[in-house]
């Protein structure tokens, strides 16, 4: 049965593509491709009835962001989504520092829903939308 | 540069055999001179004051990886001792491991002008030098740890002393170091796999060599290289009950290295190597046995490693010893082994009067300083911060010069320690002349720093003036006044410039970094083979290993001609 929304745990972190992209430049295509996406479990994608490379809307208590969903290639990770570090990830992850200075970049509860018609914002568009600059 | 004339002080300059004579000291261009033009020179009226050469510290952990890790892991140590920024000075923190600027200020406030950082992992030498650059007001030098360096172990094992000497010379140059530092020889390599050596004749695993062979070999190398200081040794079994026999064995072992009646070894923080007993329950002072040996032999010098009753931080390259302390205390524990070279560890430690072992340690250091008859053989240190922070020196000065002062402290100590202490039987009280030996002249002599520790013509104009009038003050009775005076120099003069007045920093100058540029007849070959070996042994490239000149802010290399 296809579901409208899926409750997941959001992780953020490094990928080598993100590493290469950040060195190429934050407005480079490499950085955009590497960071404006999220890895999802193939089974979870099936549950939402979406194919590889479909856009999804990820929502947490902190906000929403449109990302391209990519099938996680190596193993099953049901219930997890993984967004590489970057402004797209930071649009949704938690700023709670639990009084020790460190935001909660990993393990945030999130919801994913298909958004095939919504556009993934470029870094310029994203900054403009969020910070007005 | 301004000329300076210090008039009418009571001068204590033991290297020139000046004992409290009222005389003038003239300074020009940063050096002591015969005389200056009295009309042009700035006059310091030192009438009624004590004038000494600037203090010299032969062993104080003030800079580098280990020290800084100590700073990082102990915010609770800093929070009680914050230092404000002023128009002249930088902010910072103490307590037991002060930040770099504060280290410079506090030493200078006590009239010290030259300090030796005794423990530097060669691989991290750049770090040590970067920190030394940020320690103002003092001349500094640092000793690379090479007693467990694989090159040393291998060349000594082969019996190739000459090649060993060439590599040691290379290491001193490369790390801009001043002396051969040996810590728990063989024990640090063993610690790589969590083991240790327990006597000077134990085999070091994988290297077929003994601590005895390492120490004797490096003492010979030291001599071949004509280094100004002797080997600087932290003994095996340090800090363990009964270790005085190891210390005696070590001193006896070094008798085999000819020394022409001069020292060929310096045992540092001797207190920690002078424990009797065979367990913590019956641990006792072995100061009597150790001092007896030193009194009858001429090849050993030592420093005290005085314990101060306070919360401090122990840090040493002796990784296995710090592990022992960790097992005893359960406190936060840092271990930091360095590939191919050495190890290290840190444990915060609170020495308490009501702890029999701590109180005995406190007593041992004083017993050693007082029972070793010749003050040229034992110097005042706390092994900062191991025994306590260096700015407790005025307390030690009081204990050394006043029986009343030390008995007042002993009275507050654990009963067991009081009963066993040798202090009640010791009447000796150091004079200001002897004090000048154990706090500057003796240390400068042991280090072979010919321009330091005295006020003869040509010496560096590093001078300390204290508000103590030896004619009117009985220092043995007025120990509180002495403590205050030595904690707040009336003047500290660095290279002819007044940097401290009445215990306050009044001028900020950079000190120099001293190192040895050892010239061997045939230099250490840096060929492809050596570079390959480098890649095999270390995780950095050969080209990135040396401390290049730009890492030292104010350079003062001393060129040494080796006899090899």
């Amino acid at each position, binding site marked *: 049965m296809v579901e409208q929304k899926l409750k997941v745990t959001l992780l953020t972190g490094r990928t080598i593509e993100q590493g290469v992209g950040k060195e190429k430049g934050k407005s480079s295509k490499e950085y955009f491709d590497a960071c404006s996406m999220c890895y999802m479990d193939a089974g979870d994608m099936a549950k939402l009835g979406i194919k590889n490379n479909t856009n999804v809307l990820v929502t947490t208590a902190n906000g929403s962001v449109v990302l391209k969903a990519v099938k996680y290639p190596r193993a099953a990770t049901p219930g997890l989504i993984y967004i590489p570090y970057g*402004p797209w990830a930071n649009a949704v992850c938690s700023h709670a520092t639990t009084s020790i200075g460190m935001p909660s970049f990993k393990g945030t509860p999130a919801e994913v829903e298909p958004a095939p018609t919504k556009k993934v914002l470029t870094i310029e568009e994203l900054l403009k939308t969020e910070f007005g600059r | 540069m301004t000329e300076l004339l210090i008039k009418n002080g009571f001068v204590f300059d033991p290297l020139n055999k000046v004992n409290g004579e009222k005389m003038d000291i003239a300074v020009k261009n940063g050096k002591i001179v015969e005389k200056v033009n009295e009309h042009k020179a700035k006059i310091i009226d030192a009438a009624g004051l004590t004038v000494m050469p600037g203090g010299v510290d032969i062993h104080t952990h003030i800079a580098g990886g280990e020290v800084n890790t100590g700073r990082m892991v102990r915010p609770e140590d800093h929070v009680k001792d914050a230092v404000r920024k002023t128009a002249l000075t930088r902010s910072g923190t103490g307590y037991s491991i002060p930040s770099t600027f504060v280290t410079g200020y506090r030493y200078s406030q006590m009239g010290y002008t030259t300090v030796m950082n005794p423990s530097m992992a060669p691989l991290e030498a750049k770090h040590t030098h970067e920190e030394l650059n940020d320690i103002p007001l003092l001349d500094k030098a640092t000793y690379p740890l090479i007693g467990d360096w694989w090159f040393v172990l291998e060349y000594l094992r082969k019996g190739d002393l000459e090649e060993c000497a060439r590599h040691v010379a290379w290491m001193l140059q490369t790390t801009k170091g001043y002396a051969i530092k040996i810590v728990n020889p063989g024990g640090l390599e063993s610690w790589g796999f969590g083991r240790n050596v327990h006597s000077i004749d134990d085999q070091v695993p994988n290297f077929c060599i003994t601590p005895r062979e390492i120490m004797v070999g490096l003492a010979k190398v030291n001599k071949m290289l004509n280094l100004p200081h002797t080997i600087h040794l932290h003994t095996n079994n340090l800090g363990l009950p009964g270790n005085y026999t190891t210390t005696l064995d070590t001193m006896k072992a070094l008798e085999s290295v000819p020394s022409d009646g001069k020292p060929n070894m310096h045992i540092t923080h001797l207190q920690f190597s002078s424990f009797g007993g065979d367990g913590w329950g019956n641990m006792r002072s072995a100061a009597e046995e150790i001092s007896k040996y030193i009194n009858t032999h001429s090849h050993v010098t030592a420093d005290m490693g005085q314990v101060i009753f306070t919360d401090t931080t122990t840090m040493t390259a002796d990784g296995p010893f710090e592990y022992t302390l960790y097992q005893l205390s359960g406190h936060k524990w840092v271990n930091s082994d360095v590939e191919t070279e050495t190890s290290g560890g840190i444990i915060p430690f609170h020495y308490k009067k009501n702890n029999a072992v701590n109180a005995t340690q406190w007593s041992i250091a004083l017993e050693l300083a007082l029972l070793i008859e010749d003050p040229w053989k034992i110097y005042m240190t706390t092994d900062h911060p191991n025994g306590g922070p260096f700015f407790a020196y005025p307390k030690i000065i009081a204990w050394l010069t006043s029986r009343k002062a030390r008995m007042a402290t002993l009275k507050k100590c654990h009963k067991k320690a009081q009963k066993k202490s040798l202090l009640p039987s010791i009447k000796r009280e150091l004079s200001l002349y002897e004090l000048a030996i154990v706090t500057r002249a003796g240390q400068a002599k042991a280090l072979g720093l010919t321009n330091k520790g005295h006020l003869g013509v040509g010496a560096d104009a590093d001078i300390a003036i204290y508000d103590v009038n030896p004619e009117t003050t009985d220092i043995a009775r007025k120990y509180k006044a002495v403590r205050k005076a030595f904690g707040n120099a009336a003047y500290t003069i660095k290279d002819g410039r007044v940097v401290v007045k009445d215990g306050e920093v009044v001028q900020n100058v950079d000190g120099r970094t001293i190192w040895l540029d050892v010239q061997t007849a045939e230099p250490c070959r840096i060929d492809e083979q050596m570079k390959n070996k480098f890649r*095999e042994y270390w995780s950095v490239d050969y080209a990135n290993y040396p401390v290049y000149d730009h890492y030292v802010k104010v350079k003062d290399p001393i060129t040494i001609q080796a006899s090899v």
Partner: protein
Amino acid sequence: MSIVQSVTCPICGCLCDDIELTIENNEVVKVKNGCAICEAKFLGYRGHHRIKTPLIRKDGKLVPVSMDEAVHAAAEVLANANYPILYGWSSTSSEAQRIGVELTEEVGGVMDNTAVVCHGPSILGVQEVGIPTCTLGQIRHRADLIIYWGCDPWSAHPRHLERYTSFAEGRFEKSEWKAYMQKLKAQAGKKKVQSATRSGLIKTQPPRASSCTLPGAPPSALSKRGRKLIVIDVRKSMSAEMADFFIQVEPNKDYELMQAIRVLIKDGELDVDKVAGVPVEYLKEVADALVNCEFGVIFFGMGLTQTAGKFRNIEVAISLVRDLNMRTKFLIMPMRGHFNVTGANVVSAWQSGYPYGVDFSLGYPRYNPGETTCMDVLIKDEHDATLVIAADPGANFPKKAVQNMVKHPLIVIDPHMNATAMLGDIVFPAAFVGIEVEGTAYRMDHVPLPLKKVVEPPEGIYSDEEILRRILEEVRIIKKQKAQQKVEAT
């Protein structure tokens, strides 16, 4: 054309210092020995994302200005600020960091570095229980058990395995590279091996062969001879593919897992079948491997510091290592990210006593993570100006922090037009440390390494050090003028 050897790579905490660069016409044209990220930086740093002149935001747009104008504007902001944040510091030299502390002290601000969002919790953990650690060469020579916990070196520190751990040749322990290749061969056939060998392990997609043992398969991999590699993570990362044993822990449950292992290595019993999603029988295998090794090491990353528990995870990881030292030699090390984030901690500590999150507003250093850390100051909107250097919080901080950051004047010093620079009010172009200017950086194990200058910076582009020094001088002039005006007014 010239070839420069032994270049230190200014990217990650590995600080590989064996990079060989070919320079032609003041440009890097070839990179040898580097990983993919290294190549991207040395070959791509000149790209069109470079900031070319100082910029100031006028009427909502960043417009070019002179260096003097930018320096004066920045100094005005800082000199007049009551509680400025000076943040970043991790991708610059320790020489620049030194001036940074002095500048922060002068303006009475908060100095914080990127450790706050990576290994800040590790530092807090270390301040609780210490840390038994070593330099990386020690691991290369001696470690027969290597654990990566909550980190993915293949992605974030690509040459870590090759230079320092499993695939490095040591004096007492040998490289597992050949054995790994043989395993691949057996599992994946000749073709894939050829491709992996030809391209080097790290520059292309790694072989897809399932070379590790997942929970569910027999854990015999842990009884093999030679170096063993265990990866513990919430997902099967690239590094996990190479491991002899992979443990998949449920998110936010690393703390439980570590406590369970602590029980097991003390020969305790667990009354459950699974901990954090991992069968206890496999944990027992792991516990055996831990106590039976000669020299073990745990590397850990953001998988521990950024998840539930944060610094408590580190504290318990270190406690596990402390416990293990009762049985064998065991050490632990954080996988530091930016190439000189370690240096930022080191320099801050030697000058102020504290490694990060240092508040100078009272005239002396204060440190209270959760209060004096950059993230908290931003979230509570307590600051009134920000200087960002050698970091990109605009991209890497949670939204709310950035929203508050741009409410007040924002000064940015960076070579690239990164997200923070796009948001900045005063932007300085900086030369690349380790390419265009020299300096010093501290490797993840605190080993200092020199950074080389291999090409000239573009004209009119200064080093971080120089820019900071000029701002500091200008701040002092402005403060002096203000003090004079005050005197005259009275």
